[in-house]
């Protein structure tokens, strides 16, 4: 998509520098001249929103780390010290804790958008897989971040998740002890989680760099799922068109974020995390953060621990194989009526699993969780491969320009 840069610096100094390190040309070709399909809808603004959230999390996180104490005896107090005594500490902490949820909200919209419009299909397989890796890193980072305040839900969550590794045959228990740095979750666990919680976001930055690089090689998918044929007719320049659209979408997203931070900052925070961790007292009802609930529900739906753990990881790993599981040549769900039906069932399964993950285990809830789990895996490994073979798709427009003109009703 983006060939050699045509960027020419205006000043002599700029030209001198550009011939030695063409970083301005790289910026120019990536964020100014980069051609963007002109038919993108607002679901395509979440890339920019996610970039903003990643930076916001890193900035607030680094300042929080200056005040936080990663030790089992001090962590809980130090978080309250941030809330009460550090200037604007409450703001930093609420921006960071609610920011994690906003980050996941945006990433889920981003992922479902990709799944609906077939953004994972050739030539974007590597782009998609890099996205799945980012998602996995985000979950690991968020999970470890949730442990740091050392509340009783932090402790219970850390115990449940690290105990998953005991399901590994033969070496499971040893692996868990190694992860804990002891015989149970404790001070060494908290310390290493803090170290990793600080490290992983920078790994995310690295993979995001690759994600953006891959995107700029193959170009963006679009709601009609047809590739750019004529750069003149089908695309607009990233700046100012996509830039201002992203800015608008980001400001609307920030209104939602601010509502949570300033007016309902504790809505997503479990009350049990305002109780200091105590290995002898476990919350009556252990729930992970909302963004991990669907996977928690899958885990609980399966009676065998090892199979449950395998299913949990398979639920995430399978996403990486989507480009090959979906056999249809048509990308966009817009032109695949039957696919759309199954896609929305999949969405209902994900939301349903999320709700059940937050509820106490009852016979009815377990049954529903099993049905939704079958729906989740069924969509990925049965519906998608089969649909591509049997589905009668609607004709996609010959080009992006044609799609735009058809929509605005202008004859050409």
């Amino acid at each position, binding site marked *: 998509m983006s060939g050699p840069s045509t960027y020419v610096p205006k000043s002599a100094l700029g030209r001198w520098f550009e011939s030695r390190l063409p970083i301005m040309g790289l910026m120019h070709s990536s964020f100014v001249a980069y051609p963007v399909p002109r038919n993108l809808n607002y679901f395509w603004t979440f890339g920019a929103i996610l970039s903003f959230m990643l930076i916001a999390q890193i900035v607030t996180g680094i300042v929080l780390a200056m005040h936080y104490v990663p030790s089992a005896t001090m962590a809980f107090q130090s978080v309250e010290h941030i809330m*009460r005594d550090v200037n604007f500490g409450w703001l930093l902490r609420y921006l960071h804790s609610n920011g994690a949820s906003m980050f996941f909200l945006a990433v889920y919209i981003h992922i479902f958008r990709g799944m609906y419009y077939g953004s994972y299909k050739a030539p974007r397989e590597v782009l998609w897989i890099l996205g799945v890796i980012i998602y996995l890193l985000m979950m690991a980072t968020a999970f470890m971040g949730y442990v740091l305040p050392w509340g009783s839900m932090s402790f219970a969550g850390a115990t449940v998740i690290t105990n998953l590794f005991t399901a590994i045959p033969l070496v499971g228990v040893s692996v868990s002890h190694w992860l804990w740095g002891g015989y149970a979750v404790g001070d060494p666990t908290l310390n290493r989680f803090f170290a990793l919680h600080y490290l992983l976001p920078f790994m995310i930055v690295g993979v995001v760099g690759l994600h953006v690089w891959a995107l700029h090689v193959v170009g963006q998918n679009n709601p009609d799922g047809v590739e750019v044929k004529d750069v003149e007719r089908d695309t607009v320049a990233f700046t100012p068109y996509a830039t201002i659209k992203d800015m608008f979408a980001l400001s609307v997203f920030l209104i939602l974020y*601010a509502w949570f931070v300033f007016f309902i900052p504790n809505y997503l925070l479990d009350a049990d995390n*305002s109780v200091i961790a105590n290995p002898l007292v476990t919350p009556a009802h252990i729930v992970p953060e909302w963004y991990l609930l669907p996977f928690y529900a899958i885990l609980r739906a399966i009676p065998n621990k090892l199979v449950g753990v395998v299913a949990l990881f398979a639920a995430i790993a399978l996403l990486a194989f989507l480009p090959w599981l979906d056999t249809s040549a048509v990308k966009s769900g817009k032109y695949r009526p039957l696919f759309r039906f199954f896609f929305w069932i999949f969405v209902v399964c994900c939301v349903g699993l999320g709700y059940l993950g937050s509820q106490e285990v009852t016979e009815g809830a377990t049954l529903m969780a099993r049905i939704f789990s079958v729906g989740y895996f069924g969509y990925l490994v049965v519906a998608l491969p089969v649909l591509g073979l049997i589905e009668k798709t609607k004709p996609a427009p010959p080009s992006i320009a044609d799609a735009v003109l058809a929509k605005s009703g202008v004859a050409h």
Partner: protein
Amino acid sequence: MIRFKSSLLAPATLALMLTGGAVALAADAPVEQPKPERQSWSFYGPFGQFDQAQLQRGFQVYKEVCSSCHRLSIPFRMLEDANGPGYSEAQVKTLAASYQVVNDDPNEKGEIFKRPGTPADIFPPPDSFPNDEAAAASFGKAPPDMWLLAKARKYERGFPNFVFDIFDAYQEIGADYIYAILTGYTKPEDTQWNLYYPGHRIAMPAPLQDGQVKYTDGTAPTVSNYAKDIAAFLSWAAEPTQTERKKIGLRAMIFLIVFAGLMYFTKKRIWADLH
């Protein structure tokens, strides 16, 4: 999964068995468990602020009743908070000096000693219960530290209420729970029976009686008023910065809405020449 959970929660089960027969007794007392009702709080919503007189009454209830068993791990100086109880510097100094606190460091003879408190000191633990174990020995369960209690208590909102709570900015779950518990001792013959406590068997015997605390501002000395005032006071103690948060939040919201509007019209203008 059940098997796996029970194995990893073994310590928890043990702890539950140790901390009173709440669970066991629940089985033979199948009384309907109502949800706490929502009260009207001055600090509810984006414009809500604490009622200073109410916080002062709440502190009075804490000092005269709750403090005989419950810690409150906040420094005395916090009571000067203008968004909170707003006591004067002199009042807080006098109050602090009326407590004996353990000095952090020993004296020159190497002895740990007590001295009168200063505003920077944290409220000392109740005299009768120097530590959690001592408290647990008499009640079967240690009375929790009250500094974060209003954030540490909840009741299940259930679907669809939990969705409405987002738009409604409902953050007073803890205060409603505390009020419900304190007014939930509805069986006079059994002071450890509570309508709202899970299983109805609560370790804390009914702590409040009408007329127990003498209010000086004319507020009726009823259990209901005590319960409301202490719940408000604890909501402040759990999150003293919330007034500042809401004030900044309103400005941030106005800025963001105007900014988003400007972005919208700029976007329209820029895209207009494309079509």
